[in-house]
């Protein structure tokens, strides 16, 4: 499975580890919907460090589409909210 962390390139992760990623993903949804800012920041950092720990970086020479897209590590709580409001991350 190919994962892209926005701003940091692609990583190759064993399919069996997807559960782990999904779990943190669900937590993030929960934090954003409940307005829990501190928890959101913690879990986003946790998500990114988990991937970096478990996955291998993809050689930039390879041109591959990703299966999962991870937001950039500095995505603020307000920006995350916008992603949910269908406004997208960046206008246009």
């Amino acid at each position: 499975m190919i994962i892209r962390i926005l701003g940091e390139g692609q990583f190759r992760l064993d399919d069996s580890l997807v559960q782990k990623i999904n779990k943190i993903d669900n937590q993030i949804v929960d934090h954003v919907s409940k307005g829990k800012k501190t928890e959101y920041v913690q879990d986003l950092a946790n998500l990114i460090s988990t991937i970096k720990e478990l996955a291998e970086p993809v050689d930039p020479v390879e041109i591959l589409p990703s299966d999962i897209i991870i937001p950039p590590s500095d995505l603020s709580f307000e920006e995350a909210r916008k992603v949910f409001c269908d406004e997208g991350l960046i206008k246009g």
Partner: protein
Amino acid sequence: MGFLDRMSTVVQAKMNKIMDRIEDPRETLDVSYEKQLQLLQNVKRGVAEVATSKKRLDLQKAKLQLNLDKLDGQAREALQAGREDLARRALENKASIQAQMATLDQQIADLAEQQRKLMEAESRLATKVEAFRTKKETIKAQYSAADAQVKITESVTGISEEMADVGMAVQRAEEKTENMRARSAALDELLESGTLTDYSGGDDLDRELAKVKAQSSVNDMLAKMKEEMKK
């Protein structure tokens, strides 16, 4: 829908825009390559812009440091002349400049990190663009082969995702530097007008606490200064 699915939608929308309106598959390859080269130029500009912003903040920090030294000297002079009220005023200004300096340090560190990431993105993209160029010529040569179409779609999709990613990174960096520029201009104005006691940001409680903290640090500085002058 999960958060990451939403992120994919955001990136997909960007990719669609990049891959827009191409009919002839062969043309797809060339148009995409052109866009990649353009984007590489944009990233280079983005890196330069972040570097310039960082330099501007470094200069501002040096200016604040000069102000600090000056206020320190003024506070001492005022104390020597027996004007504790003036000394207190100078030290109040000093305390707020110190607070601004801490914010500035954080911003400088943020920009340095941003610059590092963009430079890495630039190097990744450059490698991919070069790989794409080679691949594109191979695919073109084999175009009559039945699987050429699949290969085109694959590589164009793959590179478009990279382009969407890098494009967003550049845009976010630009937004950030723009914000910092505005804040830095505001700080310059405050410095010039001499009204640096700006406890902006945060709620009422934050502001009150900041005031209390500044007041106690002024008292500490004043006491320390008096102590030193006794020696």
